[in-house]
């Protein structure tokens, strides 16, 4: 057996390549569905490409869409790395954006330099709280965290709708929504800049926060003793406890950080794009988008950064598919297929056997 690694070995071993292959397969499957429906694949995918790259405006749209996905993706990725599956990011996101909204309206007269950090802080705190309660229920009464997160997602959703109805922040007009947050709370780029580079009207500097958070999370996971502790607990609670790490505290810490990230994601979305909170009839699905982004980014912070942008671009450009009479849901099919193939990426490992004739016996 020679030790030289062939190209097939590299393909078989690299998670990165598996993800790329999954994405390619995702688009192929999407294409098959389009063909079956009698829609031109070149038209549809052309539209996708065009609405991402054709102008600075489109690119800026994709970044704006991607920003909250990156941060929620970081939240879920962080939870994966620390052994808790944060299926509750949805609720934390909602709590974060509501907290930012309330602060952004009620303290609207404060200058931006104070108000915006205050909004972020409120959002992070609200998200962290929503995560920590789940951890507390688990530690204190052994309540299954997946179950309570599902409950808390819905509780957050209705709580947000309830708060949005408060006279102090409710829109006086007919819209079922809150008032807009103060201009001081918005993270939009200066109008001059937007005009000069022909960016989208909601172009904002939230992406910088997302990048900063990516670096911070990478740093925490890889370089700090806290990261060591949380990972140890994530991999093996018994050994971590044996090593003197407080497991309960670590779970709370991990959920707090993960929740804070999801909450921040909510505030970035609100201060950058929405500006107000509508009363929804169903969940918006940012939490599940976060799960997908974390998976595509193989739970690596920088992978998540790219995956978040990818997902943002898909969602934005998917909305343009109507122009060619293609259903936007083809994006869901692409994403679902990508994630499915990431799940079964072990099959890519089989390519290494292509070079050898099948072995006899053994199976």
């Amino acid at each position, binding site marked *: 057996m020679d030790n030289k690694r062939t190209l097939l070995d590299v393909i078989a071993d690299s998670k990165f390549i598996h993800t790329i292959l999954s994405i390619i397969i995702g688009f192929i499957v999407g294409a098959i569905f389009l063909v079956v429906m009698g829609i031109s694949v070149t038209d549809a995918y052309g539209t996708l490409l065009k609405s991402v790259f054709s102008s600075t405006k489109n690119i800026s749209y994709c970044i704006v869409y991607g920003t909250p996905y990156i941060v929620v993706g970081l939240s879920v990725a962080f939870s994966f790395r620390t052994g808790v599956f944060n299926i509750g990011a949805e609720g934390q996101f909602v709590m974060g954006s509501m907290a930012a909204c309330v602060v952004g309206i009620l303290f609207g007269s404060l200058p931006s330099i104070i108000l915006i950090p205050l909004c972020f802080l409120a959002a992070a705190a609200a998200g962290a709280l929503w995560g920590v309660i789940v951890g507390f229920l688990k530690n204190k009464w052994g309540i299954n965290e997946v179950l309570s997160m599902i409950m808390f997602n819905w509780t957050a959703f209705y709580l947000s709708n309830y708060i949005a109805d408060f006279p102090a922040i409710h829109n006086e007009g007919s819209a079922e929504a809150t008032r807009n947050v103060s201009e001081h709370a918005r993270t939009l780029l200066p109008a001059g800049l937007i005009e000069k580079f022909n960016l989208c009207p909601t172009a904002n500097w939230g992406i910088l926060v997302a990048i900063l958070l990516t670096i911070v999370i990478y740093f925490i996971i890889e370089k700090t003793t806290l990261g060591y502790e949380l990972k140890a607990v994530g991999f093996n609670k018994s050994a971590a406890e044996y090593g003197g790490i407080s497991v309960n505290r670590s779970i709370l810490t991990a959920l707090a950080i993960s929740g804070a990230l999801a909450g921040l994601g909510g505030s970035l979305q609100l201060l950058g794009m929405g500006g107000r909170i509508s009363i929804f*009839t169903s969940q918006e699905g940012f939490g599940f988008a976060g799960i997908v982004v974390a998976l595509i980014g193989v739970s690596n912070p920088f992978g998540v950064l790219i995956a978040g942008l990818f997902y943002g671009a898909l969602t934005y450009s998917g909305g343009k598919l109507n122009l060619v009479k293609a259903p936007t849901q083809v994006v869901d099919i692409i994403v679902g297929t990508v994630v499915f193939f990431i799940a079964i990426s072990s099959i890519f490992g089989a390519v290494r056997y292509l070079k050898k004739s099948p072995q006899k016996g053994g199976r």
Partner: protein
Amino acid sequence: MNALINELGVIIYATLLYTPPLLFAALGSCFSEVSGVVNIGMEGMMSAGAFAGCVVAFYTKNPWIGFLCGGLAGALFGMLHALATVRLGADQTISGTAINFLAPGIAIMTAKALFNSTDTRPLEPGSKIPLLFKGTFDTSTVFGTFLKNVFTNYATTYLVFLAVLLVWFIFYKTRFGLRMRACGEHPQACETLGINVLRIRFFCVTVSGFFAGLGGACMTMAITNQFRPISIVGQGFIAIAAVIFGKFRPQGAMLGCLLFGFCTGLKVVLGNSNVVSAQLISMIPYVVTVIVLILFVGKSHVPAANGKPFVKSK
């Protein structure tokens, strides 16, 4: 007093109306989880069933063929999840997440292809799941109205409780049930006794999809009369929650679903009163679940091999 009896009747009606979609799905989830496979793709499988059931009933004008096809559509995605998790060793969470995107995506896309809309066309009354005991009770008396409220409900409501009985019987009184539970606890032991763990798990995950599909079909064929993208919003996850709540037993999951159904019923009744915010009332099921867990249920015994892929020795 009469008003109270009336309200009680309405709550019971609403409870029995909203329980079946959750309960069908929860029964499915029991199969999957107890055999050792986590299935968070329930939501997607319900969507598939909700859509397929409605469409087939629309074209065939036969609710039962539609209902069955709803189950089969769910089973198809159940099989996909089984293929990934049981045969290809995929991470069960990831595969389930994928299905939650794939199934609704395909459903809505097909709806667009067929009806040029994200919604299906509404079912005619004859294509809907039939109401049982319609007009059987004399609604001129309070008691009669009460009985009507309690018993006049969609056939699926009756069906789902029969299904609970059936599933309970399968779980605890049959050979298959014993083996299935053993697979979720100690797959290696099963393997040494010549029990085909992979086959049983594959089957159970497929069945979980089938039941999820039936649950979805209840939603669009009984409670409403058309499939819309928001037909299934979270019921799959609630079903999973009900199963955890019920300690992975069909009878326990039934209690969990009834609790949700009851809270939803309460919401319907209180929602008309305008005393409390509708949003706060909507929160009740979720908050109550957590409180009930804290007070009465506590830790549940998760099947020991739940979520762990089983690799067959060679």
